């Protein structure tokens, strides 16, 4: 989890990732940043996120991102 937070902060340091649940909806992550994040996650955690899973619900909070990575078999 800490590693993920680190990644997120690297992309946009302005958000409170441990509590925020509207990362996409409130524009803390633009779609560009989202794609950067996905690239980063795939490299760091060795998972492949299929395009169909890149939907706001999966990226609105650090927790849901974490769950997604776990679900896809990533180690974090």
């Amino acid at each position, binding site marked *: 989890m800490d590693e993920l937070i680190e990644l997120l902060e690297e992309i*946009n340091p*302005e958000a409170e990732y441990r509590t925020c649940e509207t990362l996409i909806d409130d524009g803390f992550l*633009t*779609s*560009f*940043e989202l*794609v*950067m994040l*996905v*690239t*980063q996650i*795939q*490299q760091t955690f060795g998972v*492949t*996120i*299929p*395009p*169909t899973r*890149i939907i706001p619900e999966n990226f609105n909070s650090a927790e849901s991102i974490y769950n997604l990575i776990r679900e896809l078999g990533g180690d974090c």
Partner: protein
Amino acid sequence: MLLVSYKFAAFFAGLAVVYYSIPRRYQWVLLLAASYLFYAGGGPVYLLYPMATTLSVWLIARRLSAMERPSKRLLLLGLLLNFGILAVLKYTNFALGNLNRLAGTDYSVSWVLPLGISYYTFQSMGYLIDVYHGKYKAEPNLARFALFVSFFPQMTAGPINRFDAMKQELFAEHRPDSVRIWTGAQRMLTGYFKKLVIADRIGPAVSAIIASPEVFDGPYVLLGMLGYTVWMYADFAGGIDIVIGAAQILGIRMTENFDRPFASRSLAEFWRRWHMSLMQWLREYIFFPAASSRFSQKTAALFQKWFGKKCGRKAPVYIANLTVWLIAGIWHGASWNFVVWGLANCVVMLISAELTGVYRKFRKRFAFTGRKWYRCFEVVRTFLLFCWLEMFEYYPFMTVFAMTANLAASLASGSLADGRLQLLGLERADWLALLISVLLLVLSGILTGEKRISARIRRSPAWMQYAAVFGLFLAVLITGVYGRGYEASQFIYNQF
């Protein structure tokens, strides 16, 4: 059949009456028959195109759905076949034109594009990809799927609907609901207002301006730029209003295509609110897949090695963005102008993406950025940026910059009040009608945004609402640009 014709009015009114008088479980069958009738209006041969798409996509999707691991090859076959038809029909002349320029030849073909081919192709390809990914099961009934592909209102101007949302709407049984029918009729009316009073009035004048930049320079560049945007919006959003309103009368809810785009505070936001169904489609089926494609990821790794982590991370975004805008550009029109227009949008979007961090800091640092006037400034800036980018659609690439410079130079001294205004073919009354109706549009947009006021308007007494709608109807009836128009001189008996 055009949405703006007596024929369509008669067709639609007749359909609505029959629709609500037959047994409800046959309603969708009637819609399919009506859709094919509507489509055959342009010549029965054209029916073959949506039928081919319907059949091929239906078959492939059924097959994909039945497989334990859906075959990628099969998906590609479906995509290539249907995008192939679209590409051949829409872009052959563009390709030949380029060939001609290189080789000095003179080839061209004169195919007439089947109505709405871009819309229904994109819509059915979305369906195919969704089925491939297992988002939902393939539709077993061919006739039902045929209705999804060729439901007549969307055949003229979109929106690009999604199957999972549409199937509940299309195949459900609908009982007549006076409120829904009345709202649908109002929606259609606003569409006709945008189209007939605004778009069809300003269209010819704007076409004249943008067709001859050497005649219409200086302040006319600004007039053309603003007018073009008004024209595009009124024409497209008006068409969509008619489509969505018509569907609503039949009890069918469609996805929205515009969400007051001119209230956007950035270009990225603008593109989430303008032609939403296409942009959504591109985001879902192009942007994310392109970003996570093997090619993107390999490039990212390579860039990371060569230029560092930051660069590597950005590579997929750049690739995905470029792909989306190339497609968006060429989707809008088969010419280099549209390609350049797409790329120009892409460049602006990438620059602003690069500056996201700076913006965030800027906003945090200065309190005034939260003020209302600053928001207004952002809205105006975004609007002008969009208008300016549209220039790439209608001027040759270099002309855009020349005309921009020309416009800037004339801002201080230029005036519209010279003989050129007469060349545009609009009378004083037309300009006045345009001004009032555009203001009306802006006002209604602002009011819709103010939740409290719009709620109060909805609660206003019935007679007031009726008066407003009837007033709008009269405005369309009288000041709409339709029929052969009236010129007193035509009616002067010329003695023979």
